[in-house]
């Protein structure tokens, strides 16, 4: 329990540090959003309009960095992430909560499927060394070394077109209004297939390789020989003795990859113009939209921290040696 509280304290500190960095970094970038708005309106803005924009965005010079920092924290506690510059006047929290489900569903489901398939194949390949699965390894290694956005571009080039089943961009048919109905859901599924496949193909091999290597390592442990000597069935030895122990590093890898669901597949979303967090982040970056960037980074940070915490908990649960007595 003490260990657990220590972990929580550590995570709270990390969260604070991340939020503080998150606040300062965009402000250190040269240029500001008003400048980019002026550019957007091609200079057809009066001086008063420009001044009021600075006030509106909270960028008026009266306030020092410290005062802005305090304000930022107060807003955070109210759940107010400010107004977006790019999607003015929508609040950042609303933009993120619109984009988040797309990313979480697409990448989340794909990550889970990839982990399950990869680990399963890895167990098999590690246990049955020398079978056909060994031929699988060079193929998967090849795919894992291909960047997934490039794979996405190739997929769009080869598989999409006017007559193709696969749409080349977007999260749903633009003629439809997002709703949980029989028109929208199939369309959303259809649009998610290609990006999902791209992520799956490029990420599954990592799981296969790490699981296979751990299986090979664990297979030479003494307790595996003992399990064979006990006359346990091959299946029982493979699953309950070898795979159970080999799984441990993969589980923490999996928990960590859950943290990168929100921010990790930026490029796939950009390639497929998928309406997720990564796509929004790209737009925010282009427009120097501090509040939106900060909001997205905040969500990513929290996701990574929560995933880390989950990894810690999973390890406590699965490996009795990490538990402290009492």
């Amino acid at each position, binding site marked *: 329990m003490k260990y657990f509280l220590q972990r929580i304290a550590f995570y709270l500190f990390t969260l604070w540090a991340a939020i503080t960095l998150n606040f300062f970094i965009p402000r250190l970038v040269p240029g500001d959003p008003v400048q980019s708005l002026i550019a957007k309106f091609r200079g057809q803005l009066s001086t008063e309009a420009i001044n009021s924009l600075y006030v509106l965005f909270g960028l008026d010079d009266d306030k020092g960095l410290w005062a802005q920092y305090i304000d930022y924290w107060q807003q955070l506690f109210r759940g107010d992430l400010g107004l977006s510059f790019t999607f003015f006047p929508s609040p950042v929290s609303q933009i993120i909560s619109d984009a988040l489900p797309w990313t979480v569903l697409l990448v989340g489901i794909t990550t889970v499927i990839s982990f399950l398939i990869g680990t399963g194949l890895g167990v098999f390949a590690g246990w049955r060394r020398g079978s056909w699965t060994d031929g699988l390894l060079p193929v998967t290694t090849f795919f894992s070394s291909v960047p997934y956005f490039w794979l996405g571009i190739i997929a769009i080039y080869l598989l999409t077109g006017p007559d193709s089943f696969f749409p080349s961009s977007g999260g749903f048919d633009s003629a439809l209004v997002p709703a949980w109905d029989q028109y929208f859901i199939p369309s959303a599924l259809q649009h998610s297939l290609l990006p999902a496949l791209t992520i799956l193909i490029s990420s599954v091999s990592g799981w296969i390789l790490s699981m296979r290597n751990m299986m090979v390592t664990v297979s030479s442990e003494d307790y595996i020989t003992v399990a064979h*000597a006990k*006359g346990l*069935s091959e299946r029982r030895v493979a699953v309950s003795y070898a795979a159970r122990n080999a799984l441990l590093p993969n589980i923490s890898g999996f928990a960590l990859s859950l943290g990168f669901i929100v921010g990790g597949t930026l490029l796939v979303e950009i390639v497929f113009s998928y309406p997720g967090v990564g796509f929004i982040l790209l737009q925010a970056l282009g427009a120097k939209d501090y509040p939106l960037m900060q909001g997205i980074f905040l969500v990513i940070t929290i996701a990574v921290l929560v995933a880390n915490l989950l990894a810690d908990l999973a390890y406590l649960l699965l*490996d009795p040696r990490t538990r402290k007595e009492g």
Partner: protein
Amino acid sequence: MEPVLEIRNLNVEYGLGDKAVRAVRDVNLTLHKGEVLGLAGESGSGKSTLAYGLTRLLAPPGVITGGEVIYHPEKSDPYDVLGLSDKALRAFRWAETAIVFQGAMNSLNPVHKISTQLTDVLKAHDPKMSEHSRNARAREMLKLVGISPDRMDAYPHQLSGGMRQRVMIGMALILQPQVVIMDEPTTALDVVMQRQILGQLIELRERLGFSVIFITHDLSLLVEFSNRIAIMYGGRIVEEAPAGTIYRDALHPYSKGLLSSFPALRGPRRELAGIPGSPPDLAGMPSGCSFHPRCPKAFEPCSTHIPVLGRPGTPDGAARSVACWLHPTEQPVG
């Protein structure tokens, strides 16, 4: 005495083809009912390979290239373990021949409770046994080896090395096998714990009546705890005799060398000698008797002809065998 396990001309090699290393060569050995048979020798003499070979647990590239391992079950006809199907082999393992392994520390799976590891073997061999009686049996075994049954829910890392090895002994006896192979069971433990555990094992053997093959490089332990001792050198058995006979009157120069490598606790002082040289390279064995380059008494035939294990011409020759040209034999064993 009735035999339980007869090893006939067993050969084990590591690797295939020309590069194969013969780790066990033409070994003939019989384990009788209720006896403790000691198997001694230096590292690399093939003791453990012999044990893994006769239970078919050799990890690749180990291959059994010849021989028979005849097992005599309590109630049915004897059969060759090396000829069993996979299914029959699984049923044979642990129920007839259990093993206590070298690494007390690593023999238990760190992520499963002691209770799980004790009961899964019951489940595998008797699927009809109820969970309640499985647990009861596991508790009984822990009590038998002197561990409080409330340690059932402990994980291996919560037990000391001695306790873990005792759990392993309890696990080995859980199906009441006729044969228990102990492969350097106490190597990782201190001397006090070694004696305590072996003493307990001998007591259990007297109570339950199983036979033991006890493998170690520590001849002093064997002299004390076993009935008969077989000495291995370079993959072959070079001498086999009752424990007392070996201790008092070893015939093979290698056995003598081993015996003079450790001090006796009682009795007259004697010089500690050791054996000069180092164990043979199994890939490039010397011709003739593999011990001849290190043997102080080597003479002509030793470097050219392999001595056969057989009854020596001594008065007690009927109960022992030796493979040495100093004691030529007319009656090969096996």
